[in-house]
């Protein structure tokens, strides 16, 4: 996993592999997930893969991160609050993070008051700016 996370820093900033991997491991350890650093995709749970994907996106120079339907990425996710609080722990660089989801998941985001609901003739969706 750590190789995957380090990739962007190595390619875009020419950061040495060891340094980039240490940075990736440091972010994983913020969520107490450093043990998955040396694991491969098949060995990780969906929630662990989600955090790896998120940390990899954090490594990008882009200032916006869009999480598209987290309930389809993380299997059996009960509470989105835990995930959002972990995202806030990781978001040191203060990137703009948006969560997009379908309207049928609206109830799951009830504790957030900055919910944006968009709808057109064919579909409706909700957006959450963390």
């Amino acid at each position: 996993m750590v190789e995957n996370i380090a990739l962007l820093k190595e390619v875009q900033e020419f950061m040495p592999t060891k340094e980039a991997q240490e940075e990736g491991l440091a972010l994983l350890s913020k969520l107490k997930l450093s043990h998955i650093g040396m694991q491969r995709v098949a060995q990780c749970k969906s929630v662990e893969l989600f955090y790896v994907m998120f940390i990899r996106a954090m490594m990008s120079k882009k200032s916006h991160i869009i999480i598209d339907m987290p309930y389809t990425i993380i299997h059996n996710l009960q509470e989105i609050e835990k995930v959002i609080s972990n995202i806030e722990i990781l978001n040191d660089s203060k990137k703009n993070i948006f969560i997009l989801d379908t309207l049928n998941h609206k109830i799951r985001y009830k504790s957030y008051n900055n919910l944006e609901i968009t709808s057109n003739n064919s579909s409706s969706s909700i957006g959450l700016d963390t």
Partner: protein
Amino acid sequence: MIKFIESIGDRTINSLNSIYEALKFTSLCLIHMVNPKSYNPAMRMVLVKQIYFTAVTILPLFIFMASIFGSVIIGMVIVVATQYSLQDNIGSIIVTFVINEFSPFFTALLISLRSGTAVNTEIAIMNVNQELNTLKEYDIDLIDYLFLPRIISGVISVTFLSILFALIMLSSGYLFTLFYMGMDLHIYTALLLNAVEVKDLIVLLFKSIAFGFVIMLIPIYSGFKTANSYSAIPISVLNGMVKLFIAIFFIEVLALLLQSL
């Protein structure tokens, strides 16, 4: 009649378009190869791994095959040369056969079957799974990160393995000359050293580099052009391998033509 002519025109345009696309891809890879910015830490890591998978893990099988083929084929060459009273030319026959022809060709075949197919399948699966698109989304240059390390590892591995194959083949050939002809080691080495020319080494290097380049480039291109479905993967590997073998024979013929000049 007009439809027949139109179909010929269509095929010609499609073929020319495919050739143009392939040449464009090749030139892009070559441009990236000479650009120092392509050699980022991630690319270098992939390159080291590729060399390990292509050239190092194959070594036990490779050394075994080179030893077996070496003694058998050099034995056959010596027996035939003796039958036709060509004992005086045995050195140059062995050198030409082993260094110029057999070592690079056999190495190319072995690496094509082992690594060429693997690379073609790997890139095709990445393409079908949209992994290539994900890398592009993250502004990761596919040529720098995925293709270039494989092409360079192909060139390095085939060159290194061809030289190794030639050395093992010539060494194991000595065993045959020892038992069959009772030839002394000094006489055997002198025979080979007198026969070998700089031209032979240049041919070995040229062919190995050319083989290594196409052995990776063609499967990569074939995998990269795979249609977006799992059933297209075996077709991609099949087409890639056919094109690769045609390219290997083309290089072989080209090298023979250049040598005869």
